[in-house]
């Protein structure tokens, strides 16, 4: 037998030798995912969309923020029309003569960034709160969970709307509002899955090895409870993007200088009645593709990881 494969040395606890990336739970989870090609396909599609969304502004034929790059002469041109200098507006132009395709590419990046950043922040806060509640228990847990119930008791759009009405618009403020309404979802899921993980034998084993509560919770319980959190996160990115778009459409979201997809749709609303549908139609299609693919991935992941359907 190879020395490195020996069961364990006396001075070193076994749990340390085994890398955490190879827990049986994780292997089972990855195995489940591999058996479902639809999950892989939708994940790849999503990664591609995200990458494209973040990089595409480099491919845009026009900088929608650079006032010298477009001309009011080209305003409200239908899709596929050509400008004086021969540039083709694939998706038409808006009221200022801006190329819609370029505006969408830039807007998509803002929407994606807001969605990803706010989801990441909400996840970190929520997971910490949920874990702390599960570890400490007692009064603190009761208090934290009451707070979670309280936040989740109201529709996100209303809380965010009223909050932004008070503090004003801006990319950072929108992110703050989304984090405020979303962290509680993670806290609830993290707590319940940490509580059920805590009863399992490996946790008991880790405790018996003399590890402190904090270490057991963060190094053992948390990684094993993350699958539910990750499913939630995919869907929450979608709802963060929807929320941002809706708030921007209602005029309390991102500022006019940083138009996200929602704001682009709102800008086109005024031209809708005159038949210039493309100004708000195409940004909405981009938004829809983004949200739909995220929700689809979330749904497939949930089915794949559902313990009842192994």
């Amino acid at each position, binding site marked *: 037998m190879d020395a490195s494969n020996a069961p364990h040395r006396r001075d070193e606890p076994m749990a340390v030798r085994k890398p955490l990336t190879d827990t049986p739970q994780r292997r089972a989870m990855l195995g489940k995912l591999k058996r479902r090609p639809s999950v892989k396909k939708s994940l790849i599609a999503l990664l591609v969309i995200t990458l494209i969304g973040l990089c595409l502004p480099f491919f845009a034929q026009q900088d929608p923020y650079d006032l010298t790059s477009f001309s009011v002469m080209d305003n409200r041109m239908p899709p596929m029309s050509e400008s004086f200098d021969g540039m083709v507006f694939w998706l038409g132009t808006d009221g200022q003569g801006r190329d819609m395709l370029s505006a969408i590419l830039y807007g998509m990046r803002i929407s994606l960034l807001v969605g990803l950043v706010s989801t990441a922040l909400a996840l970190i806060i929520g997971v910490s709160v949920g874990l702390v509640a599960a570890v400490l228990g007692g009064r603190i847990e009761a208090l934290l969970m009451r707070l979670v119930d309280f936040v989740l008791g109201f529709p996100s759009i209303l809380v965010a709307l009223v*909050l932004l009405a008070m503090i004003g618009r801006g990319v950072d403020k929108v992110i703050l509002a989304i984090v405020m309404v979303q962290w509680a979802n993670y806290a609830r899921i993290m707590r319940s899955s940490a509580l059920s993980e805590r009863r399992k034998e490996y946790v008991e084993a880790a405790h018996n090895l003399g590890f402190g509560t904090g270490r057991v919770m963060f190094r053992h319980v948390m990684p094993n409870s993350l699958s539910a959190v990750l499913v939630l996160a995919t869907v929450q990115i979608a709802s963060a993007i929807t929320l941002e778009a*809706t708030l921007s*459409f209602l005029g309390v979201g991102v500022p006019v200088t940083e138009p996200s997809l929602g704001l682009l749709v709102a800008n086109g*609303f005024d031209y809708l009645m005159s*038949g210039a549908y493309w100004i708000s139609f195409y940004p909405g299609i981009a938004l829809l593709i983004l949200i739909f693919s995220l929700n689809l991935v979330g749904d497939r992941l949930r089915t794949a990881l559902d313990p009842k359907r192994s």
Partner: protein
Amino acid sequence: MLLYTLQRLLQSVAVLFAVSIAVFLAVYSVGNPVDLLINPEATQAERAAMIAKMGLDRPVWAQYLTFLGNALQGDMGVSFVHGIPALELIFSRMPATFELVVLALLLASAIGIPIGLWVGLRDGSRGARMVMTSSILGYSIPSFWKGMVLILIFAVWLNWLPASGRGDTVSLLGVPFSFLTLDGLSHLAMPVINLAIPNLALMIRLTAAGASEAVHQDYVLFARAKGVRSKRIIRRHILRNILIPIITVLGVEFGALIAFSTITETVFAWPGMGKLLITSIYQLDRPVVVAYVMLITFIFVVVNLLVDFAYAALDPRVKLVENM
């Protein structure tokens, strides 16, 4: 039961109390309350008189007590823009919103529950999977954009339906409603459909999940073994059991739809309380915003309370007494 009722009522009061503090702090800590609560067009003398009258020179806790006392008496201040009490203004817009929300919920459940049942009983078939995937699409479409596409198709291109407003209304018990006139119905159609679609998707998924689980339950197997006809099994056994979560969700959704109707009302210029909220935010009409938040919190608390009691009344397995 009595103990639980009291416990829930106390909790509800605590929620209202917490929201009132949060709203109060939001209005009073962000910026100068004098600027927020007093009409910016007031003269210097009027300002001084208002500050004295509203007690804005007193300590914060004393101001909060006044705010709470007034709110308990239904006094939420006077709208800057409309010059009438904020609460009265919101109440005048409420029927329009309720009409929209109730019709959307009815439409969503009338179509969603049968489709969900169909999908749930054919779990895994090609058709069922297609419906489930389209239901994801149903709740993925951003509501405001969907409304605009509806307007584009039915108002701009086809010219079948009006794009905005409420149309003719008929007074019922002193409250104007649109659904009793043909013109009103044509105005209602698009906003109601727009509001109903995400809910329709939710109803389908909820019913399908419940039904596909219920088919394998012992009571269904037993009924089948007894020779009960499948139509009767679906109606009397499966549907009855899955209706409990559906009714719970319907209750919660009622509150949520009031909030979401804000978007639909804005797109279709529907004169409800959601549109009023957005306009008030634009016009910095703070008393109306504050009154709206307090009122909708109240509605939510009441709806949640009713849902909990309805849940207990419908499901004999649910015991209302906690900690026993």
